[in-house]
């Protein structure tokens, strides 16, 4: 999860989710960084609209109710 939190951090700071930036954040937290996971994450998030995904998370559970109804 650390990798995702790092990405969220960068996103909310308006920074690019690049390998360098993710690595920097994780290292600052004292985490031993796995390069290939960083690469995989950056590649996977390329094209993902994080703002949209996040706004769904805030709304989702509430929205779930009517669906269930």
């Amino acid at each position, binding site marked *: *999860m650390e*990798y*995702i*939190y790092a*990405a*969220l951090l960068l996103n909310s700071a308006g920074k690019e989710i690049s390998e360098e930036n993710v690595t920097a954040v994780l290292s600052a937290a004292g985490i031993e960084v796995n390069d290939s*996971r960083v690469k*995989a*994450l950056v*590649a*996977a*998030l*390329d*094209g*993902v609209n*994080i703002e949209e*995904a*996040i706004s*769904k*998370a*805030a709304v*989702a*559970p509430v929205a779930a109710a009517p669906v269930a109804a």
Partner: protein
Amino acid sequence: MAVYTMHLPQWKRNEVAEIKRCSEEHEVVGLVDMYGIPASQVQQIRQNLRGVATVKMTRNTLIEHAMTEMGDKVEDLKGHLSGQSALIFTNENPFKLYKLLEQTKTKMAAKPGETAPEDIIVPKGPTSFKPGPIVGELQQVGIPAAIEGGKVKIRETKTVVKKGEVINKKMAEALVKLSIKPMDVGLILQAAYYKESIFTPDLLAIDEEQYYNNVVLAAQQAFNLSVNAAIPTPVTISTIISKAVREARSLGVEASIYEKDIADLIIGRAFREMLTVALAASESGYELDEATR
């Protein structure tokens, strides 16, 4: 007007006097339609109305005489007389009288040519009949009768006449055999005189469900107003507090105000956001770790 009465024989004059006396002694003078009500049912209805309302059957001409002599508004009742009108007297208001008459309606067998007041349903199950021509008679009118274990049974529940349809002779006979009584029988209020006004059924029929719904609605409106305008009442104070607390929590979470009381909510939100993004990443091929899966 009195001149009119003087031409009547004594017994008729007595009858007219009796009608006038009853009218003066009661708040409400009403006309009810007795058409098609068997004597036995009339007896039952009188019984049900005992102590509340009195029904007086007499000739229309005598009712007219009495009304004419009384004059004023009550004379307007004459316009509502029909072939089989009877008088009804009560001290309840006409709305209650109407309701009472509705409640004292009883069920009766249908006669050929009558219209079904509601769907007529034959329930599934055993009957008291032994096998015989009855099975054919029932089947003929579409009632799913069958012989089972030496008895006549109705195989399934079926609507045999729809509301508003005419009940034909064979159907009427079949329903009588099955003891199904679809007809509502009771006194139908044609008009009522009360406190200088004539009330007709269209005014008197009360939709209680509508009133109930309106009471619920009014209570909801009062509740909403009290809470939304923050006017505390004993009934709403807790809800108002809850609303204020929720507002504070929402603001705290939305703006990430790090206060202990809402720390769990903020954590929860961040966690959900992380999960959502993790999910999006995994859809694009990122392999999730243990905790996220």
